[in-house]
Every structure is written in structure tokens, then in C-alpha cells.
């Protein structure tokens, strides 16, 4: 992923404040934190001389469109449903120790974060994910267990 400085280089750099931020650099930082989207910069969106940069920036933020609230993306074309993440996911184990925690079928689907449906992992109940909420931590449980890098956080 890119950084705020790289994004800034692609912005108009006029500090016009139309986006509501004090400078283009501040806008770049807001873009990075996903507070604002590329559409929030009117000159970038409307003026033809910035079109190329606008497309580039939009492209960078495209994968996050399908992301869930915690930023979790499942690349469905890569996932083959091995279920490693389902069994390794700490909230899954805590909420269903004798089902998915023991490698078996889920017994309590409603409280699970990850389940396998039609051979592909599906994320749900993200309120239970350890990357979410007040006590959030940077958990990598589902990423390190995936053999094909089908799960990504943005």
C-alpha cells in the first residue's frame, strides 16, 4: 500500500481547502485513514488535467470498496475453503470451542466471524473480530494460517 506522501504527490497541491481540510497534505492523510475518498477533492475529480491522477488514486482505493468494517477482504478467487482461518480465528474458537474450534462444523453460526459457505470463506459478525471495537488489537490469526493469501486487511 502506498503512503500519504505518495498520495500527496498526485493531488493538485493547491491547498484550495475545498475538501474542508486545511491543506492538500492533510487531505492525503485523511485519504490514507479512509476518512475521505478521492471524490471529496473537487478539483481532482472535475478538472481534466488531474484526470490521470484521479484515476490512479481511485484505483488504489478500489480494493477497499468490498472491504468489511474491519477492513477484511476475502479474495474469493484465491480461497479454496480449507477452513484454516475458521478454525484458527480466536473469537471463533472462543464462541464455538466444540464446533469450529475443534475443526468440526459450526454449532453456533450466529456468533462466528468466519464460516465456509460453498467452498469459500465468508466474513460476518465483524463486531466479534478482534480488530474491531473498543479493545481492538492487531490480530493476524486468519492471515498467517491462509496458504494462499486469500485474506487481507486494508
Amino acid at each position, binding site marked *: 500500500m502506498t503512503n500519504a506522501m505518495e498520495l500527496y504527490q498526485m493531488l493538485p497541491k493547491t491547498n484550495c481547502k475545498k475538501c474542508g481540510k486545511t491543506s492538500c497534505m492533510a487531505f492525503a492523510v485523511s485519504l490514507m485513514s479512509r476518512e475521505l475518498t478521492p471524490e471529496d477533492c473537487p478539483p481532482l475529480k472535475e478538472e481534466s488535467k488531474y484526470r490521470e491522477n484521479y484515476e490512479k488514486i481511485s484505483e488504489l482505493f478500489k480494493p477497499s470498496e468490498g472491504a468489511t468494517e474491519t477492513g477484511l477482504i476475502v479474495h474469493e478467487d484465491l480461497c*479454496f475453503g480449507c*477452513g*484454516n482461518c475458521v*478454525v*484458527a480465528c480466536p473469537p471463533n474458537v472462543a464462541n464455538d470451542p466444540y464446533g469450529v474450534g475443534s475443526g468440526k*462444523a459450526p454449532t453456533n453460526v450466529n456468533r462466528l466471524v468466519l464460516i*465456509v459457505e*460453498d*467452498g469459500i470463506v465468508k466474513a460476518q459478525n465483524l463486531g466479534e473480530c478482534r480488530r474491531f471495537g473498543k479493545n481492538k488489537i492487531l490480530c493476524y490469526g486468519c492471515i498467517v*494460517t491462509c496458504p494462499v493469501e486469500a485474506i487481507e486487511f486494508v
Partner: protein
Amino acid sequence: MEKNYYVCTGCGLLCDDIEVESEKNIINKVYTACRVGVAHMKKAKGETNFLVNNKPVDEATAVREAASILKNAKNPLIFGLGTSTDETQILAIELAKKTNATLDDTSSFCLGPLVEALLKDKLKTCTLEDIRNKADVIIFWGADPSDSHPRHLSKHSYFPRGSEKQKGWEEERTAIAIDIRKSHTAKICGNYFFQIPPGGDTEFIDALIAALSGKLPKTSYNFPPKKILELANILKGAKFGVIFAGLGLIYSLEDLEPVFRLMKILNEKANFHLVPMVGHYNMRGFNENLFAETGYVNRVKFEDGMVKHGPEYSVVESLKAKTVDAALIIGSDPLSSLPRSVSKNLLEIPVISIDPCETLTSKHAKVYINTAISGVESGGSATRMDGTKVSFKPVVETIHPSDEAILKKIMEAV
């Protein structure tokens, strides 16, 4: 609420916790199964096919034609059965006896020797449940379950918590991969991946045995001795170790003698078990059924009530030497899977193909009978890779006859 679970017959794991949503005999959603299993369960198909010389006929004609081919042959070959139920396999053995046939399955060029050693109690083995509950050191040798048996690691061998392994994989289990390439499984094993050159397994075993006995491990391909010593130390500390032996290991060895030596020393220093990574869902079942009947796991020839056994009765050798004069292929596609130099001889003899899928073999068969997908459209029982018996019921109904029903009819007609 008691849930209705089905068994997936997509691979040798026979996962027994699959939930299915179906409507009007069409499977809409499959839960918990991997992509292999979903594809296997969803491949429902259209009308029934009975073909003789690629022309549609009715069932009776196809069965009559098949029976007459078998009757007129002096030495028919019966091959396949890895994806058939125990009941079908027992029928096929009976049919082979009745027709003086050569009987073989894919295990003769696959994991047959290993299953034979297990059935003769030459190697220590255990069930997948034991592995889930107790295993602390898990070796994948020449196997890549992430691709071949996708739920292997998550359902049994590495990630799940078991009765004696409550803390989970990070703290209580060590997964080791020994392979010639960095497979998907090897990736999960991280630092415990040992990459060896193709054919280097025997030397690696010898080096490992040396390391286990406190000697300096040497290999001609200069594998870092420090890494082998490190591996030996992990193995020595295993309270419940298991080796999953895949085709990569078997193909690389001349015979199983190095495996016996390794297992012997491992069991002197620690506690180790071996489980073959069986691919087809009931290949081990065929080996066990034939073993119970004849004392051999594959490669047999029945002749007037006598049983002959030897490498010359394997599918490859008998086709190569052209000793068979007809073939009954059940649930297998030798024209695609065997080398052309061998399989082309199938084109010279009448072939009966009994298969739920249209394959290259079925297209070149004299008689083709389209059967139900066993485990999805027909029930029965099978043997999992670790030797556990699993029974299953059909998920959906079908107009296709099961291979068991067809074999019964052929048997009556012969």
C-alpha cells in the same frame, strides 16, 4: 437442535460434517465443505446415459453387452473402484472371481505398498481423531494436503483443538513439511520446511536416522547438517508424532525399507505413527476389502478359484504386455491418467466404462454406463485414509443407477 450432516466423498478425508441446502434434488448451498467438496457435490447432471458404441440404448442392452464382453474375454481387466463404495468393491471382487479376471486399482501405482504394510502391522498407525486430540509433531512428507485434502490441516492435523491439545496450534503443535517444492502446506509450516531435491528422500531419511542416533548427518546434496540435527531434536521430543506420507515420498523410494528403518528408530526415541495420504475416497477400502478376501491389497489375477499375485497383474504391466483382452473400468479414467504408451493398448480391446462422469475413457469405451455419484446420489460405506469406516447416505435422489446396482445386474448376466 440435531443437525443433519452429510459425508463428502470428494477426497480421502471423508469429512462427515457437511451441511447441505437442497431443493427439488438440486443442491443449492454447501456449508463447511472445501471447494473440492462443493464442486464434487454440485456436479449434478442431466439425463441418464447408456451408450453402446456411442449410441444411446436402454439399460438392459448396455448390461447385456457388458456381460457378453466379460463372458467372451479370457482374461478381462477390472480396474478402478477408488471412488466406489465398499459394497461395490466387494461385488467387483466377486465378479472378478467369476470371470477369471485381473483385478487392480490405482493403488498399484499409488500408495498401495504403504497400505499393505499398515494392514500387515509393519508400521504403527493411528486415527485422525487421535491426531486431533494428541498429536504434537506432524510431518507432511511428499504431500501437500492444502491442495489435495484442503480440510486436512483445519479438521484434523494442525489447527483444531483436541482433548489433550487445548491451547492450539501456535503453542502445542509443530508442523513440518519435507518436500521438493514450497507447496501451500510448506508455506504454513514456515521455518520447518525442508526442501530436498527430487529423489533425495532416501538420503534424507538416512541422514535423519544418523542425526537421531547422534551422528553427523550427511547428504550428497549438502543439506545443512545443522538443520537436520534441529529436525532430529524436534522429532526426539515428540510425545505423539505422526508422519503423513504422500506420493512424493513413495515415488522417490525404491522400496519401503528406509521408511521401516526411520519408523523403527523414531519409535525407539519417541512415539511416531504413519498415515498414508490417500487421494481417492475409498482407495484404502479397496485395499482392505481385497486383503480380507485374498491376502493381497492389489494386483491380483483370479483363475478357477485360485488367486495369483504379482507385479505382472498390475494395470500398467498387464496393459503393456497386452495380456488382458477386455477391460471393465469403474470410476476411473486410465486413458487420461496413465502414460499414453500404456493406455493406448486400451483402444485395442473392448472397454466397459462405468462412471458418473463422461471421461476420455468413456468416450472410447464400447459400453458406457452413466452411474450415480457415489456419496452424493447414492449411499454406502467407505474407508477413510486412516482406516476408519464411514457410512453415508445420498444427499439427493437421482434417476441414475448406482454402480453397485449395475455391477449386480452384470453379475447376474455373466
